[in-house]
């Protein structure tokens, strides 16, 4: 390797080190190691599948939330949207008739889009601060969910289990079953989400989501329909929530109007851990996934480290704050390094 190419690779490596993503990765690795030490059978296939299944809903919610936050918004209603969608799915489905599952998926999809559109109108067109707009809509979705399903329950078609565990579906083709044991459906949903975002990010919409979140006014004078972009971001988020709802109904075979609510703040925290700025425009949706993994490992660690029940919540709060601080404390150091790289005016 000659001198000049070494310098180039050095600076590329340095650049990566100074990115906030780097600290996020380090924290993930630390969490992984701790969990692996605490959970004896961590690397066994069964527990890997179990872990993936446990993490999937949060990962999907976090990725969707990341899109909205990058576009300069915030969606507090994603949790109750998830509840609503599970209720819609189980409301439409009838156990004996497999075809109702298809209807349910179509209707729930339409509801998801509608939720995105309404949130988007509030944030983008009416210019209500996102926090307030989605806080308000979250009660609408909760109300609608309670209307459909006042108590947890409902029924689901049998093949819906395939979103959780293909093996559980009785008359599934054999090759699907084998496939399902190698690649768990939860993982497939997450990959589906990643591919979905990958495609979006290669289009104008993807570029504009960053532009609008970074500087709404500048984007507007550049001729971008900023309100429409914010609405699109909300719809994309809803579709991620839709995927999570499929998984949840597949897992539980029932709907619950109260299940999604507690997840939402966790998802927002996870996006921050993933290095996404709440001010918008910065960060990567894929690293939101890493953030969600980190937060999920926190719960695992608490579970396996024999913390007395009474303190579990307290300790998990502490770990979360340490994890977030870990990524943020890194920032000033990284800024100083950047300053030495460039001239400021």
């Amino acid at each position, binding site marked *: 390797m000659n001198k000049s190419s070494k310098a180039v690779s050095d600076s590329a490596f340095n650049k990566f080190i100074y990115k906030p993503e780097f600290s996020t990765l380090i924290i993930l690795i630390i969490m992984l190691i701790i969990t692996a030490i605490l959970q004896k059978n961590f690397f066994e296939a069964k527990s890997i599948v179990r872990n993936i299944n446990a993490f999937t809903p949060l990962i999907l919610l976090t990725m969707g939330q990341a899109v909205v936050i990058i576009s300069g918004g915030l969606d507090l209603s994603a949790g109750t949207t998830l509840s609503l969608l599970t209720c819609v799915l189980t409301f439409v489905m009838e156990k004996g008739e497999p075809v109702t599952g298809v209807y349910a998926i179509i209707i729930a999809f339409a509801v998801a889009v509608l939720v995105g559109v309404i949130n988007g109108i509030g944030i983008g067109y009416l210019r209500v601060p996102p926090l307030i707009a989605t806080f308000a809509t979250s009660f609408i979705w909760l109300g609608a969910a309670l209307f459909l399903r006042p108590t947890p329950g409902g029924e689901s078609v049998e093949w819906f289990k395939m979103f959780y565990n293909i093996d559980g579906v009785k008359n599934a083709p054999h090759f699907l079953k084998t496939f399902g044991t190698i690649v768990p459906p939860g993982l497939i949903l997450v990959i589906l989400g990643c591919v979905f975002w990958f495609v979006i990010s290669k*289009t104008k919409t993807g570029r504009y989501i960053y*532009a609008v979140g*970074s500087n709404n006014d500048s*984007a507007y004078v*550049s*001729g971008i329909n900023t309100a429409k972009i914010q609405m699109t971001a909300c719809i994309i988020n809803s579709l991620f929530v839709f995927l999570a709802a499929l998984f949840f109904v597949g897992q539980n075979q029932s709907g619950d109007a109260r299940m999604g609510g507690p997840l939402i703040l966790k998802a927002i925290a996870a996006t921050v851990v993933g290095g996404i700025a709440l001010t918008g*425009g910065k960060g990567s949706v894929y690293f939101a996934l890493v953030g969600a993994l980190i937060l999920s490992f926190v719960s695992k660690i608490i579970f396996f480290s024999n913390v007395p029940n009474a303190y579990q919540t307290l300790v998990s709060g502490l770990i979360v704050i340490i994890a977030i601080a870990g990524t943020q404390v890194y920032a000033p150091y990284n800024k100083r390094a950047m300053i030495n790289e*460039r001239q400021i*005016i």
Partner: protein
Amino acid sequence: MIILETIGIKKCFGGVVAVSNGNLKCQKGKITGLLGANGSGKSTSSKIISGVYSADAGEIIFNGKSVKYKNPNEARKAGIAMVFQNLSLVGDLTVWQNIVLGVEDKKGLFLNNEISKEKSKAIVDQLLPGLDINKKVYELNSGEMQIVEIAKAILEEPKLLILDEPTAALELAQVKSLFSYMRILAKKGVAMIFTSHRLWEVMEICDDVIIFRNGENVASIDFNKDGKDPKKIVSYITGEAQKLKVEKNHNEITEETILSIKSLNYGKFLKDVTFKLKKGEILGIGGLTGQGQLELMLALAGNYPDVRCDAEINGKKIKLNKLANAISNGILLVPGDKQREGLFLNHSVFTNIIFPKLGLKHQPLFIPYKKYRKECEQVVDALSIKTSSMDTPVSSLSGGNQQKVVVGKWLSFDTNVLLLADPAKGVDVGAKIELYQHIINQVKEKKMSVILYASDNEELIEYCDRLMIMYEGKIVATLEGDDINDDTIIATSMRIR
């Protein structure tokens, strides 16, 4: 051939009339200067033409047709592009992504980044060779950002290009290269509207000028027919015969040293800066832009915790690592970017002026409003800040008056050294002279010393008793007396001598 004509444009914001009667004409292949004080309506007129605002009344005729654009995109498609004064760039995207923002090339559904990059590179190479188009925009300095802004506007080859103070952030060499590019565009038949507060630029590049005052255009001068007379232009801008100079006063400098800085070092920005400031003196800092002048100002004001230096004020040793240290020792900074660094724009003049006091030690539990209002009144009088009342939000004041508020914040403090970091940036000619006059009156009255950094050499020549020239973070020369003139400054700044 007239390409654009506006007839009787009117625009109000709330109750405030921004433009009352805007009439202007642009010709194909000609550069039209648009002059006027801050708040005279030239920015608003440009924004109406480019579709950012819609006019309340009046007509715009473009290419022989009466037009009305609902948004900037429509205007851009019709061939009117605007370079914005408050930058329209998105910090988190790269240079080339910004240049093509809104008009991306596509391959089917997806973005075609290769073509976009090529196009951007071709334009950037003409305007500022050597700028890396893959850099994120927030990493650029303000001059480079302005270049990107211009590149963005000319990407689509507009018929009419509106440049709203494009040179404010540029240094001389960049201005020259922009001008030569503008001449190329003019030859291609592009009509241009050019605004600037620097008169010489308008004189050099424009074919004719239109002057705005209080929302109306009061004169149009064709340089070819009517000749170039700067005094006449200035009198049209300000509406009165203008005295162009403030008297320099050398007498009051005492031999007493008020501030002495020895070997100040900060990263790679400041290297071994050593100087002494006498009481009553106005010490200038000059040189090319970005040679560490602003960093020096910020370091003196205590902005950098890890700055290393031996500083003495009135013979007493002090540390410069904290803002609070600097303020309590009477070293006070008036930042140049007043809107971002110096003011709470949405708050009243009163709040802005008394705010620094609230942080002082030994404050009463409740704010003594009556006392403060009296003090505030005095400040408003002393600097003759033009505001309808003390409770008017600062955002509704003109640029010059906003800057006076920033200066006013410090007036009731015991000031030893006032640091002025490009105080007249974005302030128009008339207001600039008035601003300096008031500052200098205060300096004399309160017997303080001033360190002045200005990007415009004229201001330095006019007001400084002594001038230090900086180059790559070092002081390379100190000019005194008759040596402070344009030629010497440029020669020493560029290290020709």
